[in-house]
Every structure is written in structure tokens, then in C-alpha cells.
């Protein structure tokens, strides 16, 4: 009981002391209505003090001395000159005839972090999942957003690739399988002040098509060979016509002159073996009259073949014919194939001249290949639309080997079918896919005179695969070491005198390499 009385006395004394101190320090200036941080400003409002002629607003920053911020005759003020993570104290002094009468102080803390105290993100994690690169990091105190920068060399130049408010980001634009990417991050505060770069993280984004083919070949006990190609030159010019526009095929004559079918310029160009333009031949067919096209004219020259006397055979998939020209470009004759009303028009995608003058030609319009004579008479035909053996879905390029094996590119079935010279099915190889020995959009096929291997261009994979004569994949070419040129929708190819020629359709060029 005694102790309780003592406790009451103590409390009472303490309260009196607090009241005394408060009275002693109480301001006699304006009374506050409020001081708040709102919408990026500090709003100050106070009551009118009778006898005042003006008010002075004093501000202290982070415990510093009070200085006059503003004088006003109003009873409110918005302080916009503030910084994130800063503590401000305000007091109002009423200017009266007897001097300044100060209000009490109000403290306002501005949210966020000061730029100087703002750290770059840390704890970066990186991983690849399917077609994205995922980044994660630790939250930075006071950060309102993060910028993600990407580079292709370590410590090298970075480009801003995105921003995130969360602590994770999925990068999926502009990244290529098989390449390594380097990332740094920054954090942004409310004032969009940005920190320095974080520590760099890097990751290899999947594997390239070439690596995947090699990997899967390895898994299948296939060892892909390294084919050495030395870049010699490329050809883009179409002579007086400017540049080529989507060339399709290439053949080389006995004098090593180069002939290129320039599909959208509707001409054939001839160059010497150094790539110097010599001449062009062919006129543009009259639109709408493709089936009655003038001799020597083209609508869409596509495949070419050359015989032992250097006569140039050019197929046209819109004129539905094959035309024969002398080496100097003079029209010799036109070969047409009769089709029934039930059939689609003849669309010769692939072409090969046999030593006896007969031709082997694919007909994409009717999903077949044929042996025809120089008059267009069909000696035999193989194929209909389908996926069974001896059936095709849009046959394309064709080759005939020294061993008299006919190889036909079967585009949509993603395979090569082989036949004897009577059209009897022998074998097939390839299937849809991206691993070694599979195809996306196989286009043209040639037999190398060096080792009888089959080279197949692929317009989807942008790749050339090399197969044994029996169809075992041996090598894959996707890029070149000594040139920046890359394969983009490759098509027609030719190998002669140790040189490899390949038409790169969309870059509108012919690339020429030395083999070895």
C-alpha cells in the first residue's frame, strides 16, 4: 500500500515535470494544421495568427540548421524541392510588429533511398528455360524499378533490353541459340536516379543448330567431319540490271564460267571464274501470258542444268517449261510437258541432264519426278502426293550420281528418296527435325565429283548437310570462319574444280569457296 502511494507521487511529479518542460518550450507562433508528404511534395498548412503580416517557412535538412525556405502571406505552402530518403523539419514564423513568433516543429521523412546510399542489385541468378533467359536478383531497398542491360562480350558494351519492377526478368527478344550473353542490372529510385551496374552474370543460351546436330550425332555415334571451306568471293551484281533479286540456282560450264538464275529479275547472268560479270540473257515474259511466253523469256527462272556441250537448261515454274540456251545465251528451244486437265500444271523445280541428252526433272505441281526426252516426251514418271515410298509432297531438287542413282529432295516429307535409273525405289533417308541427318526445308541436292557425297541445302535450318552416297550424314555446314556471310535460305549448289558454289537466296548472292 505504501509502495503504491510512492508510485502515484512519482507519476504525478513526472507528469508535472513534463508539463512544465512543455510549457517552457511551447511555441507561441502559428498552430499547425498539418505537414505531409504527398504526390512528391511536402504540403504545409497552418492557422492564421492574428497580427501577422507574413509568414516565414524555415526548413532543416537531415538535422542541419534551419534556414528560411520561403516567405509568404498565405497559410499554406508546398515544398517541391525535396529528395528521396531525406528527413526535413519545418517550422513557421509569423512576422508581427513585435517580431517573429515561431510555431512548433514538424518532421517529414521522404520515402525512398538517397542516390548516394542506393546500391546496385546483387545476388543475381541466371538460367535458361526453353526460349528465354531468366534473371533474378535480391530486392534493393528503395528501388522502384530495375533496368536490365545485355552485352555479347564480357565487360563489354551493354544495351538496355528491358525494365522490371519485380526482382525477375525474362529476356526473349533478340537472343540467338548458341550465343553467350552478359547481363548487368541497375536500380532506379523514385527520382529515376540510377545506380551503377551490378556485377556481371553470363550464360550461354542453349546450343546452336550446328552444335545440336553435332551433339545428337555424337549421341547416335555419328562423328561429324570438319569440312574446311575457304571463302573466295561472292557475287551480287546483275550487271546493268543492278543487283540480283532472289537468285535460285547456279551451274558452271566447261570453261569455268558461272551462270546464275536471277528469279525476280527474270534473267540468267554469266560471269567469269573470278566473278566478273560478262552478260545476261532472257527477257521478262508478259504477265498473264505465262503459258504463251515468248521464246527466251522468263517469268520465274528456277532450276538450271548444263550438258556436256555447255548448253544451259533453265526451268521456269511460272511458265511451266524448260528452255535450252547456247552458252552465249541464244535461245535454242523450249520443252513443255503435256498435262491432263485433272493435273496441276508442270512445275519443274529440279533439273538434271543425263549424258544421253534425256532429262530427269521433278514436277512439284504433281508431286512426281520424270525422265523425259528432248521433246518433252515422258519416258517414265514416279510419284504421287503422299508419304509412302515413291510418293512425294512437293519434290524439289534432284541429282543423278555417277553410279546412276537418282536422289530426289522430298520437301515436306523432309527426306531424300533414291531410285535407280528405271525409277525403282532404293532407299530413303532423313526426317523432320533439327538434329544431324534431319531436315527442315530441304531444297537442292548435288553430288560432289570429289567423293560422290551428297550435299543438301536446307532453307529453314540455313544449313548444308553432307551425306554419304547411301544417306549417312557426314558433315554439316552452317557458318564460315573467314567471312561474315552467313547462309540465309540457301538453295542451288555446284561443285567443280575444287570450288563450292552456293546460292544464298535472300541475301541475293552467290558465295564461292575453295574446298579445303
Amino acid at each position, binding site marked *: 500500500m505504501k509502495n503504491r502511494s510512492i508510485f502515484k507521487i512519482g507519476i504525478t511529479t513526472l507528469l508535472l515535470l513534463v508539463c512544465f518542460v512543455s510549457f517552457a518550450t511551447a511555441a507561441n507562433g502559428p498552430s499547425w494544421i498539418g505537414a505531409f508528404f504527398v504526390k512528391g511534395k511536402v504540403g504545409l498548412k497552418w492557422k492564421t495568427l492574428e497580427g501577422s503580416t507574413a509568414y516565414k517557412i524555415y526548413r532543416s535538412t537531415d538535422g542541419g540548421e534551419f534556414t528560411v525556405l520561403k516567405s509568404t502571406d498565405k497559410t499554406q505552402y508546398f515544398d517541391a524541392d525535396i529528395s528521396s530518403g531525406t528527413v526535413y523539419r519545418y517550422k513557421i514564423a509569423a512576422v508581427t510588429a513585435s517580431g517573429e513568433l515561431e510555431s512548433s516543429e514538424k518532421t517529414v521523412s521522404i520515402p525512398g533511398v538517397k542516390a548516394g546510399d542506393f546500391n546496385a542489385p546483387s545476388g543475381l541468378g541466371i538460367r535458361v528455360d526453353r*526460349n528465354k533467359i531468366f534473371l533474378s536478383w535480391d530486392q534493393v531497398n528503395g528501388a522502384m524499378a530495375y533496368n536490365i542491360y545485355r552485352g555479347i562480350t564480357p565487360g563489354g558494351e551493354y544495351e538496355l533490353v528491358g525494365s522490371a519492377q519485380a526482382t525477375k526478368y525474362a529476356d526473349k527478344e533478340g537472343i540467338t*541459340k548458341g550465343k553467350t550473353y552478359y547481363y548487368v542490372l541497375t536500380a532506379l529510385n523514385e527520382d529515376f536516379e540510377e545506380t551503377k551496374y551490378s556485377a556481371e552474370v553470363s550464360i550461354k543460351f*542453349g546450343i546452336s*543448330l550446328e552444335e*545440336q546436330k553435332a551433339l545428337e550425332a555424337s549421341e547416335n555415334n555419328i562423328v561429324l567431319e570438319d569440312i574446311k571451306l575457304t571463302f573466295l568471293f561472292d557475287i551480287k551484281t546483275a550487271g546493268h540490271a543492278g543487283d540480283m*533479286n*532472289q537468285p*535460285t540456282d547456279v551451274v558452271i560450264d566447261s570453261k569455268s564460267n558461272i551462270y546464275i538464275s536471277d*528469279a*525476280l529479275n527474270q534473267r540468267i547472268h554469266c560471269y567469269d571464274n573470278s566473278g566478273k560479270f560478262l552478260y545476261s540473257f532472257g527477257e521478262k515474259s508478259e504477265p498473264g501470258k505465262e503459258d504463251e511466253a515468248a521464246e527466251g523469256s522468263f*517469268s*520465274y527462272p*528456277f532450276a538450271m542444268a548444263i550438258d556436256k556441250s555447255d548448253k544451259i537448261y533453265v526451268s521456269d*515454274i*511460272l511458265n511451266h517449261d524448260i528452255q535450252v540456251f547456247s552458252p552465249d545465251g541464244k535461245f535454242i528451244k523450249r520443252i513443255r510437258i503435256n498435262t491432263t486437265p485433272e493435273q496441276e500444271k508442270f*512445275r519443274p*523445280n529440279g533439273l538434271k541432264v543425263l549424258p544421253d541428252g534425256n532429262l530427269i526433272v521433278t514436277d*512439284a505441281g504433281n508431286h512426281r519426278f520424270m525422265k523425259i526426252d528432248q521433246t518433252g516426251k515422258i519416258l517414265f514418271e514416279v510419284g504421287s*502426293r*503422299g*508419304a509412302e515410298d515413291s510418293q512425294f*509432297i*512437293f519434290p*524439289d531438287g534432284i541429282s543423278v550420281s555417277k553410279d546412276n542413282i537418282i536422289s530426289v529432295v522430298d*520437301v*515436306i516429307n523432309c527426306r531424300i528418296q533414291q531410285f535407280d535409273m528405271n525409277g525403282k525405289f532404293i532407299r530413303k533417308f532423313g526426317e*523432320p*527435325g*533439327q538434329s544431324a541427318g*534431319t531436315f*527442315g*526445308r530441304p*531444297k537442292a541436292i548435288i553430288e560432289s565429283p570429289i567423293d560422290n557425297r551428297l550435299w543438301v541445302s536446307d*532453307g*529453314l*535450318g*540455313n544449313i548444308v548437310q553432307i551425306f554419304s552416297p547411301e544417306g549417312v550424314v557426314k558433315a554439316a555446314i552452317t557458318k564460315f570462319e573467314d567471312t561474315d556471310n*552467313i547462309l*540465309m*535460305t540457301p*538453295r542451288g549448289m555446284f561443285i567443280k574444280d575444287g570450288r563450292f558454289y552456293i546460292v544464298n*537466296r*535472300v*541475301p541475293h548472292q552467290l558465295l564461292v569457296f575453295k574446298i579445303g
Partner: protein
Amino acid sequence: MKKLLTLVIVLTIISLPMTAFAAVAGSLHDLTGSGTQLCFACHTPHNAAGANLWSSTPSGTFSGVQDLCYTCHDGSVTTHGTATAFNAALQQHTPVGADCSGAGACHDVHNEGTGSFLVVAETNGNYCESCHGATPFTGAEGLGDHTAGITHFTNGGSFTCNQCHTPHGAVAQTTNPAGLTNPILLADNQPGAYYGAFCISCHNGTAPAVATSGTGGQAATDVFDYAEALNDGTELKHPTITTTGLTPTNGCNLCHDVHDPAGTASGYILTSDNTNSAFCVSCHNVAGAPPVGGNTHFTGVPTDVAMNNGLTPALPWANQIDEDGTAGADWPSATANMMTCETCHSVHRQGNTGVDAAYFLRHENGLSNQLCRACHTAN
């Protein structure tokens, strides 16, 4: 209820690829032709190295999905679009949305839609009005692509956008007037110095045959030949030169806008009304063109309104002008019997009797000032 909702969501998700599958089956994009395994023609289900389950992402000068399209539309599988949509040297319709196929785009490769795998509606013989409708299309309004109510196509309403434009494979323009970047026209409108060569390929006196009758000084057999508006260096035509030089930099578009909705109100798809030659004066004011100033011939209603009949045909007053020879006076609200610019001049040489007249006068004036004296008979 929750289970039912879950079931509905699952079925919806499952049905999405099935919908695409069903739409492709039997279409021109059913490349297998068998209705089975048709997805495999473009997609590979496992470990796809490319985007959209493609075995790899093709690269080329085209964009996005079009690079994959090209692997067939390169002539090997189909010839459709090989020389047009897939000819980067020609002009193509500006992409709508992120790609040529997919959300917001014109095409959907999984849906034959209204033909050519188009998902836009066909209206009045063309597909353009789905977007280029009653209001100017956002992003192209500055070029006036408004198709509703235009007066340019008056041939019985049978003209459609595709008679001048094509979305794919349009002729690349040699030059364009300022602000025009991608007109996707069927022919070059400015192969030389003058903008309007494509316009004149129709308006050449033979087609369309709009001038078959009328007054205004044009004989019924004198087919209106706008080609005479060309500055060909041998005849003096309406000048379309800049104020800083003698090189023609404009042409028909200087006064006309074939797509300007204001053309309906102004007449003759002029960009401004020419009643009482107001449009003429809007250029011939100060520095923009030879000005009509204080020393210019009188314009207004003369005391003797019969004084213009000294020539055959008579020079027209403002309310009698009939440049195209059809549908009566061009500016019926013009002041009656008022002499104005077009009383003596015709920018398209209307009424010229065949003898070249300087300053595109309706009649030759010559050293004897016969044009002047036709009215001023007392002189």
C-alpha cells in the same frame, strides 16, 4: 461449381490447338494433304530449336513469321506470292500488328478465313475498308486514306482500292511527295520530274471518258486530256514549280487529293473549294506563285455581261465554268456573270482549240491580242 469451372478452363485450353488443327486440315496449308501429322510440316514438337516450335528460326530480310513462310513461298512448294509478297524489292503494305500473321495482323496461317488466309472482312469488292473505313486510319490520316464518300471513283461505283493499290508487290516509287512513304501503287507515279504519271495513265483522254458533253467551251469530241497538264518542256502548262527554283516538284497532288474527304465538298477532289477561283487565288496571292495584285485585270461582274461572246465558244463567267464537261457548272454557287481567273484561264487547257496558248489561256491571244479583243470589241 469449382470443378465445373476447372473443367471448362482445361477444355478451353486443350481446344485452342485443336481449333488451329481443324482450321488447317483441308486448307492450302494442309501440306501433307492427308489430314494427319499436318502440324509437322512447320512445327517440331520436342526440343524445337526455333521459335513457335519451329525446328529452327529462319533468318532473312523478311520479318518474324514471314521468314518461315518464305521457306515454302520461295517457289519450291508454292508460287503464290513469290514475286509479290516475297519480293523485298517491291513495296508491301505496312505491317498491321507485330507480324503478317497472328494477333492483330491481316493473315492467320492457321485459318483460311475470307481467302488467302485473310482474317479481315471483304467489303464491297475489297478488303481495305475493314481498316480504312469511314474515319481516317490512325497513322495514315495525314495521307488521306479515307475511303468513304470519296468522289474520285465515280465509274458506277465499280472502282475499288485495288485498281490503284496492291497490298503486296506494289511498284517501288522512284520519288514521293513529302509525307508520302508507302503508297503501294500499281505503277510509279513519279518516274520523272512530275508527280502524277500514274494518274495520267488513266486520265489521258481515253479513260475514263468523263468528258463527253457539256458547255464551258469543250467540244463533245474533244476528250479531256489531263496529260496536257504535264510540264513536258515544249508547252506551257500549269506550273507546279517551287518558289525557289524551276524544277517541278509536284503534280496533280498540288491541287488534288484523291482520298481527301474534303474533296467531296470541294469538287473534283480539290483540296479546297474553287468557287469564284478562290483556290486559284489561295496560291496566287503573295510569294507562293505569280501574284494577282493591284495591276491585275479586273475580276468581278462587268457592266456589260454580254461582252464575253466574241469567241466561240464563249469565255465562261464564274458560274458557267464546266471543266469536265459533265453535270453542269462546276461552281453553281459562284457569282453570276462574274469574271474570274477561270474565265480566261484553264489549268488543264480546257477549251483550248488545239493551238497552244501561253499561260494556259482558253484561247490563243497572239500578237494581235485576239483574246482580249474578243471581249473588248471597241478596241
